[in-house]
């Protein structure tokens, strides 16, 4: 029954994210637009673009993940859904995990899927593309999970999105450092594996602590 409840909650969150105002496609659109702006800003010289592409795409991914983060719990808090979820036969920690998963499925996953195209557009060498895609694939879950902690801390705050960015962006630094490092290693024909493993390790670490941290913050905020 618990897994049935989680599945229903996940389906509901995805359904809401994909409808008007849900913010599902916004993150991907923002990700693409930012990448398109880079050549306009730094010039179209292929060597320079290729050197910065990995870092730029990772920064764009961090910012895009932030966009819809503030609504993760806020919307449910405002209309009373969060109260009902606390009474529902599903632990609050699992609610957090489900909501972070829904966030990742509508931000991290589509961004990972479109990243190779953007990499090519930014003249990233072909041999660096796998490191970019794998890095985003194993690294973006950390963005949604760490973001869930920030979203739960700011759930009762008006205009909490601004505070949320300031809280969460510093916590994204390790993912950015190792994710961009993996792309750079692959670009200069070195082994990207250690950096990729570390990127994935951050996601695993976040998956282990985020549900408990976020659930504790939600309980405090619901008073």
């Amino acid at each position, binding site marked *: 029954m618990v897994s049935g*409840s989680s599945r229903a909650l996940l389906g*509901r969150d995805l*359904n809401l994210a994909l409808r*008007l105002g849900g913010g599902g496609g916004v993150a991907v659109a923002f990700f693409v637009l930012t990448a398109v702006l880079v050549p306009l800003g730094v010039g179209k010289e292929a060597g320079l673009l290729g050197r910065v592409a990995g870092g730029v795409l990772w920064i764009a991914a961090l910012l895009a993940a932030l966009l819809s983060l503030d609504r993760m719990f806020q919307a449910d808090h405002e209309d*009373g*859904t969060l109260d009902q*979820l606390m*009474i529902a*036969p599903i632990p609050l920690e699992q609610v957090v995990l489900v909501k972070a998963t829904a966030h990742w499925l509508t931000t991290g996953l589509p961004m990972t899927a479109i990243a190779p195209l953007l990499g090519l557009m930014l003249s990233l060498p072909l041999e660096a593309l796998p490191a970019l895609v794998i890095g985003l694939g194993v690294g973006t879950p950390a963005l949604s999970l760490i973001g869930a902690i920030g979203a739960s801390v700011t759930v009762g705050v008006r205009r909490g999105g601004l505070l949320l960015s300031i809280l969460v962006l510093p916590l994204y630094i390790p993912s950015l450092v190792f994710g961009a490092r993996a792309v750079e290693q692959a670009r200069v024909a070195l082994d990207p594996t250690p950096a990729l493993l570390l990127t994935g390790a951050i996601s695993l670490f976040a998956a282990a602590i985020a549900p408990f941290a976020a659930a504790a913050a939600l309980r405090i905020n*619901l008073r």
Partner: protein
Amino acid sequence: MEIVIDKLKVVRSGRVVLRDLDFRLQGGQAAALRGPNGVGKSTLLRTLAGLLPLAGGDVRLAGRALATDRAGLQENIAYAGHLDAVKSQLSVVENIAYWSKIYGGSAERTEESLDLLGLTSIRNRAVAECSAGQKRRLGLARLAVVDRPLWLLDEPTVSLDQEAVALLTSLVQRHVDAGHMALIATHVDLALDPLHELRLTPPAHARRTEADPFLEGAW
């Protein structure tokens, strides 16, 4: 089955809202929770639902104590607060179907709960196009998707018309007749039988303060 409230004390942001509250409600009974605005009716219901921390005392329901087994107690509770917990982007039936699945209810019960609140005719309407009364009915329909012994209703009749109040009354009556319990904060008279009463009064120190000319305006 019964719910026992034992010397309950609740503090919100440093202010004692409820203290030394004792109350019992047995299976097959409903009680109206009455008292002036701001006396702590919603606070009491939210505390019983496990949404606010206890500052003292305890609540026991079905052998579970709120102080030690919050989740176990919550499994026996259905709560309908001021907020309806419905999503305006979804249709009426989608809203209730998702709640039913989250609470582990069946598809038949979902349709039945819509019928009980008179929502079948607008089942496919988007909630964004529903009136406040229809949204309230939808929020109340969630009570009927699973069997939970104790219903906590916070001013359920707000924005309901007479016909909907009658539907709600019969819904609660059916629940109570099945041997369950309901605690309803309300300012209107509900035609429930038997209907007990829990009247909350402002705490003694607040009354004393009002009578003290030297402390006038201090609060």
